[in-house]
């Protein structure tokens, strides 16, 4: 105690002084730390409230039309914005039978709004000791309103979503369909499932509904006329590679795709591979001209059938004489085409057909794509038969995209079913020279003016093309008698082709009006001849005078030079 009474600092010594100094230092340190902490907090406070937008927090916002779109799956529209597939919010009706007071009365009331339900069944559903039973899925807004107005206790609505295809079967094979859980199962719905589920305001296809309608209507009529079992058609823009129309018949209702014949789901244009027949002669002529194996005045002796091992290659209504290269196409001579292919040789043929995309699986944005059937061994006989379109099966899509390359001046471009920006031309690979392409365009025009394509020669649109009638393969690997696929591939206007149209009719039957013929020249060309004048005004192709001198000059081919003159015939 005596020490404590004497507490002047000067007099403090030893342990006491030391303790006090420690205390001071600690106090100072603590003070400094607190000062630092408060400075940091203060600075952060100033930062948040003054520098980083010190406004009131935004707790509320207006409904954003894009974020708050009522449905979860995006729309699919055509190139002009018409809806092809959309999701609608619907209400599904369910009941809690435990809360239903009078099941008989409730059932009777519900029947007045939903007359398609059975009274007895409904009444059983509404009785019983359960807490949930569906009454009906996907009510229309009107039905929902009326059920609401009945005011039955124990009956509730569940928010539901339903995929709707306002155009029905019109573009069914392109758009595809979804299952009960709104998952894409076919077509664009399947290949773009993730994109569509990501929401947004829709995916635009290259399809034009008007062209799609014309194709579907005319092919349906053409099929009906000859009692065919199926048909297919495509319209492609040769410069952008956009598919403007793609129809495969018979088709299906995407709202109910599984109810009907599963054959209807089959997309003939992309999944089906067929021997394309005489249309292939265009590729044979193109590769022979481009490789230099032949020129426009070359001749081929088609006077007698070719016998090779156990096969005989003969002509349908042959001329029995030497034919010039244009004549081989005009008269669609198998013998001439076989010899032309032979003149080019197997390697050249393989190289060009590969470049035309005919030997591997093509690409398109829908999942239903078939791979071509290419012979394992490419012998001389294969070269000859492939020269006129037999022994190599490709899809109509491949056939058409090869012709697109001939029509646009020789460049293979990827075909798409999605809309491209106006004027956007994808990078392509040149397969044949511009000169060969121009010659081929003249030859295609010649087939329509002078050959088997006459029925497609609509005035004003300078149609060019090539027919093909291929015998179908039966189950045993042989050819079916009188069962053919009659196709016509065309482009227009031939002075500067802009669009390719390919139409196939499957298993046409002989009719009196066609004098019993089932060949493409009788069955398919008239269909194309009705399609082109209907779609050309939509596509903005203005008609020209086919008889005008300069048009004739541009399309002129001196093709009868071989008549009666064996000349430099191959063989």
């Amino acid at each position, binding site marked *: 105690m005596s020490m404590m009474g004497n507490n002047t600092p000067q007099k403090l010594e030893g342990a006491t002084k030391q303790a006090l100094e420690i205390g001071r230092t600690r106090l100072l340190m603590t003070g400094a730390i607190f000062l630092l902490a408060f400075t940091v907090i203060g600075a952060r406070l100033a930062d948040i409230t003054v520098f980083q937008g010190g406004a009131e927090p935004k707790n509320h916002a*207006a409904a954003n039309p894009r974020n708050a779109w009522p449905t979860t799956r995006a729309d699919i529209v055509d190139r002009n914005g018409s809806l092809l597939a959309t999701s609608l919010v619907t209400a599904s009706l369910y009941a809690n039978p435990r809360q239903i007071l009078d099941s008989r009365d409730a059932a009777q009331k519900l029947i007045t709004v939903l007359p398609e339900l059975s009274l007895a069944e409904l009444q059983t559903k509404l009785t019983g000791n359960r807490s949930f039973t569906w009454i009906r899925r996907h009510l229309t807004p009107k039905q929902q309103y009326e059920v609401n107005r009945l005011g039955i206790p124990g009956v509730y609505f569940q928010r539901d979503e339903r995929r709707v295809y306002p155009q029905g079967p019109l573009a069914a094979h392109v758009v595809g369909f979804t299952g009960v859980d709104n998952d894409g199962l076919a077509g664009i719905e399947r290949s773009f499932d993730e994109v569509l589920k990501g929401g947004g305001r829709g995916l635009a296809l290259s399809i034009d509904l008007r062209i799609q309608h014309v194709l579907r209507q005319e092919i349906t009529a053409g099929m009906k006329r000859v009692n065919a079992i199926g048909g297919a058609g495509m319209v492609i823009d040769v410069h952008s590679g956009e598919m403007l129309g793609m129809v495969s018949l018979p088709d299906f209702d995407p709202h109910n795709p599984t109810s009907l014949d599963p054959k209807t789901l089959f997309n003939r244009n992309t999944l089906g591979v067929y021997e394309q027949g005489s249309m292939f002669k265009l590729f044979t002529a193109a590769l022979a001209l481009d490789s230099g194996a032949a020129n426009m005045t070359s001749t081929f002796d088609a006077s007698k059938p070719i016998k090779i091992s156990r096969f005989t290659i003969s002509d349908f209504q042959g001329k029995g004489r030497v034919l010039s290269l244009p004549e081989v196409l005009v008269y669609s001579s198998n013998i001439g085409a076989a010899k032309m292919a032979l003149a080019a040789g197997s390697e050249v043929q393989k190289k060009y057909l590969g470049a035309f995309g005919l030997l591997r699986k093509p690409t398109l944005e829908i999942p239903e794509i078939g791979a071509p059937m290419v012979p394992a061994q490419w012998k001389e006989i294969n070269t000859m038969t492939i020269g006129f379109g037999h022994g190599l099966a490709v899809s109509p899509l491949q056939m058409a995209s090869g012709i697109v390359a001939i029509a646009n001046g020789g460049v293979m471009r990827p075909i798409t079913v999605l809309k491209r920006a106006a004027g956007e031309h994808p990078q392509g690979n040149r397969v044949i020279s511009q000169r060969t392409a121009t010659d081929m365009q003249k030859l295609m025009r010649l087939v329509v003016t002078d050959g088997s394509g006459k029925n497609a020669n609509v005035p004003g649109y300078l149609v060019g093309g090539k027919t093909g009638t291929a015998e179908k393969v039966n189950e045993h690997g042989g050819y079916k008698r009188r069962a053919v696929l009659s196709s016509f591939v065309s482009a227009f206007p031939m002075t500067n082709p802009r669009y390719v149209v390919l139409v196939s009719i499957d298993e046409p039957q002989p009719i009196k009006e066609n004098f019993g013929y089932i060949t493409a020249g009788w069955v398919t060309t008239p269909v194309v001849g009705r399609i082109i004048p209907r779609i050309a005004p939509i596509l903005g192709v203005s008609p020209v005078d086919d008889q005008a001198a300069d048009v004739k000059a541009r399309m002129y081919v001196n093709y009868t030079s071989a008549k009666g003159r064996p000349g430099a015939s191959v063989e």
Partner: protein
Amino acid sequence: MIGRTTFLWLLLAALAGYGLFQVKYQVVSLEEELARLNAATLREQNQIHVLEAEWSYLNQPQRLEELNERFVHLKPINPVQFASIASIPMRPERLDIEPGARLPGTEGMIARMAPPRRPALPGTNPGQPRDAAPAPVYSAAAAPIAPNAIPKPPTISGGSILPVSVPR
């Protein structure tokens, strides 16, 4: 003096409190209005969405075609119904013909599609200048022709095409 200061502070506090509650109620009512408007927007959007689907359904080409057949009877445009501006001859300044007579140079227009003087081919310019078309020259001086003497080409309804020909 102390009482007055206190009173002033109390008054300010009361005013601030009143202001605060005013703002608070205003905010609550605005929030309610916003929620109501948002709900209405979504409802409208949903309705628009349904209407768009219905519009597309009602515009099925097949249905439009049937309606056309029932009510308006439009036909696809025939190639001979097209003509280019360049193919129409210039109106002559002076004519040497009897009133009511057929105007020279119009026969082709009515009988058949007048072939374009230079067809619209790629590489060429379809919209060639008008003075490139040789204007008909009529020698003798005569009174200007009465307007009603010029035979009018038959008109056909619809479209922006030039009615220079009758549908076949």
